[in-house]
């Protein structure tokens, strides 16, 4: 069956994309919400090849297509109709498609990393604390509680590829569980832990490509980029197979073949490439730090963070171990500290400077974790996304590393950096302190100067800051029982003009709608919360004058399942005039393809003689919106 043709014909039969409000699909049906049902040619729809039935229900035009095919028709339909009902990710992709490739790549990495930051921060902090405690109290490391906590602390980092793979699978549109499997393959217990490999000699090898080259049987603990590449390959193979494998085999052929090919390519091609890169990086790093007068360290301090980004920094502990073996002086660790705390400081500056709450709430914990030696949240979650802080961190890292080299700072052990590094640099305390301070201050100042909120990020801020405040009721303002005062700010809209049949034809009751300019709903009068949908997109109030009022934010927004909505009251609560009930994210809701026009409906219209819209054009909070007569 030709999905594209089917979708095209459906779109034509419903009166084109202009007549479509939104679309979704369930297991068997396309569920479309139509602006004008008069334009829908039902008989034409029923005769389209692939359509098994058509009926109208619950205000939706439901087109039965069948399991397994409906999603494919839907995919085509979404493309043709230009609706973005599917997901935010599609919208993001569309937005990103104009940017140059490296920006897209950086943005994608950020998008992948952001959702898993809480996991990394939790374990990162625990990891740093445990590392510090065990250096301060050597006996602590031998206790059973340490063994237990140590397990908690390194789980997320040990299994990082699984977290990355799941997040990447979501971004690339691959099956999330197959993505997880790829992540699991990459850190399978039968492979040697990448952190314990050392300098790469005497590793067991595995067969590949008929012996053309051998691969090392090492895992990808702590890796980022190879995992992302692997999942990208998975998504390409999986999508291709979905299109080309006949439906009846799709369910077992596609996952099997996707995992097989991706796994094989990952282990035999991506793996060797990265292990070769790591070897070069190791050689390069050794050569760099041998340049005297702090110059080599300066360069290494700058280069350190990019090697973390590329995921080729895992063999650095080999350098440290060989230094400790040679003369007991680990001069690598101060360089790593400078680079790490500088990234943390750069993220901290972003956190203080930004007016965007989301970035702020991410930058601060990420930065703290970097000071304890775990830099991934700061680098991937914040600095790399905006690039400039990363550069600021590199500059700070370089300066700090140069100081360390000139002062001859060295550690007497390895395994920790950052704040806890003081515990293993007791021989050169002041040098280490100076390294730390220089790296932090330089990175913070540079980042503070060069980082600026982009327009889109700044715009969100004032709205987010004011959004949950209650609206003040002016004392002098007279209150007239026969009016409904606007719970929203925006443009007053006639109910009949709401692009949804159920509302427009007064099925739910009578009233008026507001096309909101600010994402907040306040109580229009004193009363009680009768019903609050757990998706927070609609709220029913019983006002003290007996009026029942339903405020339904957006059209079909029940399908968002609460995303973009936040409520500040619960069922049964007493509310006073002007009190904030719900806040909602207008750009987010619109980016998902939903309209935010909000019907304000009197659901007991039978108790009134007349209900008329009483406002034209712009209305503010608690302006008169509807007039009634009993």
């Amino acid at each position, binding site marked *: 069956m030709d999905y594209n043709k089917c979708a095209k014909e459906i779109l034509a039969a419903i009166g084109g994309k202009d007549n479509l409000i939104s679309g979704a699909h369930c297991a068997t049906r396309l569920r479309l919400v139509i602006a004008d049902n008069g334009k829908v040619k039902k008989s034409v729809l029923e005769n389209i090849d692939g359509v098994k039935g058509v009926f109208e229900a*619950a205000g939706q035009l439901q087109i039965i297509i069948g399991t397994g095919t409906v999603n494919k028709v839907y995919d085509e339909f979404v493309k043709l109709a230009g609706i973005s009902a599917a997901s935010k990710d599609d919208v993001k992709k569309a937005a990103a498609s104009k940017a140059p490739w490296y920006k897209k790549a950086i943005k994608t990495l950020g998008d992948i990393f952001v959702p898993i930051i809480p996991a990394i921060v939790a374990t990162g902090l625990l990891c740093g604390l445990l590392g510090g405690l065990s250096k301060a109290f050597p006996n602590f490391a031998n206790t059973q509680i340490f063994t237990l906590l140590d397990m908690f602390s390194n789980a997320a980092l040990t299994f990082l590829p699984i977290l990355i793979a799941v997040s990447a699978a979501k971004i690339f549109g691959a099956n999330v569980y197959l993505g997880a499997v790829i992540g699991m393959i990459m850190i399978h217990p039968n492979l040697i832990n990448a952190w314990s490999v050392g300098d790469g000699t005497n590793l067991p090898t595995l067969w590949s490509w008929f012996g053309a080259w051998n691969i090392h049987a090492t895992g990808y603990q702590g890796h980022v980029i190879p995992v992302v590449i692997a999942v990208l390959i998975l998504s390409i193979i999986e999508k291709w197979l979905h299109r080309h494998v006949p439906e009846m085999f799709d369910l077992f052929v596609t996952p099997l073949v996707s995992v097989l090919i991706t796994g094989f390519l990952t282990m035999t091609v991506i793996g060797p490439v990265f292990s070769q890169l790591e070897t070069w990086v190791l050689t390069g790093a050794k050569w760099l730090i041998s340049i005297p007068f702090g110059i080599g360290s300066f360069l290494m301090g700058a280069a350190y963070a990019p090697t973390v980004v590329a995921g080729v920094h895992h063999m650095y502990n080999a350098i440290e171990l060989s230094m400790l073996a040679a003369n007991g002086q680990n001069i690598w660790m101060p360089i790593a500290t400078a680079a790490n705390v500088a990234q943390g400081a750069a993220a901290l500056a972003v956190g203080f400077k930004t007016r965007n709450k989301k970035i702020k709430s991410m930058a601060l914990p990420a930065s703290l974790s970097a000071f304890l030696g775990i830099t991934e949240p700061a680098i991937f979650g914040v600095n790399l996304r905006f690039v400039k802080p990363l550069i600021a961190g590199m500059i700070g890292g370089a300066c700090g590393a140069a100081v360390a080299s000139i002062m001859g700072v060295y550690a007497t052990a390895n395994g920790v950096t950052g704040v806890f590094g003081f515990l293993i640099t007791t021989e050169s305390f002041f040098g280490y302190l100076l390294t730390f301070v220089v790296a932090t201050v330089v990175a913070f100042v540079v980042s503070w100067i060069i980082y600026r909120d982009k327009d889109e990020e700044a715009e969100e801020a004032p709205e987010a800051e004011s959004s949950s405040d209650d609206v003040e009721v002016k004392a002098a303002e007279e209150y007239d029982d026969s009016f409904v005062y606007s719970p929203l700010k925006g443009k007053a809209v006639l109910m009949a003009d709401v692009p949804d049949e159920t509302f427009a034809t007064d099925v739910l009751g009578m009233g008026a709608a507001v096309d909101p300019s600010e994402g907040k709903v306040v109580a229009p009068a004193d009363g009680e919360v009768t019903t609050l949908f757990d998706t927070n997109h609609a709220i029913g109030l019983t006002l003290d004058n007996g009026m*029942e009022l339903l405020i339904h934010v957006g059209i079909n927004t029940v399908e968002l399942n609460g995303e973009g909505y936040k409520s500040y009251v619960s069922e049964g609560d007493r509310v006073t005039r002007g009190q904030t009930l719900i806040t909602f994210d207008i750009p987010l809701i619109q980016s998902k393809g939903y309209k935010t026009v909000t019907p304000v409906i009197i659901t007991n219209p039978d108790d009134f003689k007349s209900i008329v819209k009483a406002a034209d054009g712009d209305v503010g909070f608690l302006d008169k919106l509807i007039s009634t007569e009993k």
Partner: protein
Amino acid sequence: MKEFSYTIKDEIGIHARPAGNLVKLVKGFTSAVTIEKESKPAVNATALMKLMSLGVKCGDTVKFTVQGDDEDAAAKAIEEFMNANL
């Protein structure tokens, strides 16, 4: 008096739109119709706000009680509505 139960199959449950349509349907009959969700007290099926406040979700079972002159027709229409929409 007629009574019957229905288990919701729709993923979203009785949200604003189906609730409104159900109320509209029930209002077309003279019979008194109540809806009851498990432990909660029965509500009048023409009271939209009360109906919505039942918070009926996918998998919930609701009990309808229909009483009046046209109870047979009303019960049949409601059952059809539920089957088609929920």
